[in-house]
């Protein structure tokens, strides 16, 4: 019996689960504040642009985006199976592709700041 290569997909999933558990709710609160008209200072155009141009911030942001998307994609893949969708390879290809594409886009945008 060959060992599975699941760790490649599971490692980022576990990391993403942890990262999103810690930061996603706080981020949502920030954008909600915007929605309610109380835009926090850092989310003003100039401030955010300056902040995001910081090299370290760019790396962290790309990382957070990647693991968040990846872990969501991985969960979605399993949920599809749980719900009776048996085309696992197809589902996996699609969801991971979306996660990777999203990450790539984020990197492109970050580089254009």
């Amino acid at each position, binding site marked *: 019996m060959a060992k599975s290569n699941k760790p490649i997909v599971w490692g980022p999933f576990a990391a993403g689960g942890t990262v999103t558990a810690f930061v996603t709710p*706080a981020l949502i609160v920030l954008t909600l504040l915007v929605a309610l008209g109380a835009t926090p200072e*850092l989310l003003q155009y100039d401030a955010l642009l300056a902040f995001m141009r910081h090299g370290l911030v760019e790396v962290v942001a790309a990382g957070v985006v990647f693991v*968040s998307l990846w872990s969501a994609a991985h969960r*979605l893949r399993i949920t599809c199976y*749980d719900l009776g969708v048996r085309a696992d390879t197809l589902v996996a290809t699609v969801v991971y592709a979306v996660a990777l594409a999203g990450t790539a886009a984020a990197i492109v*945008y*970050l580089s254009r700041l």
Partner: protein
Amino acid sequence: MAEEMNGKPYVRPITSEWIFRHPRYLRYMTREFSCLFIGGYTLLLIAGLKSLSEGRAAYDAFLEALKSPASIVFQVVALAFAAYHSVTWFALTPKALPLQLGEEFVSDGAISGAHYVVWAVLSLGIWVLAGAF
């Protein structure tokens, strides 16, 4: 002593109905569905990043779009699911990463508790950094 056996063991069919068989499976599904909102929200952030890279006008339009009722509803629901994800994640961490000090294991409650503390500190940090207060 038997002549031939006529019957075979009976194999019950598997159906998707299992999700409703017990509240625990519904809870599990709720947890798993959080991925749609966390993933969706991350895509929203990427859209924000895109607008940021396209200049002030685009970005301000993005901020404006956040204020639409649909966006508010989505964010509120996403917040609920994200928080549910955090709670379940912290409840499960002590199982995956038990900590033995001397003879005794650190109690699950203590490990989860520590996670909650980190969560609170991180969230506060993010909000302070963003100047939300």
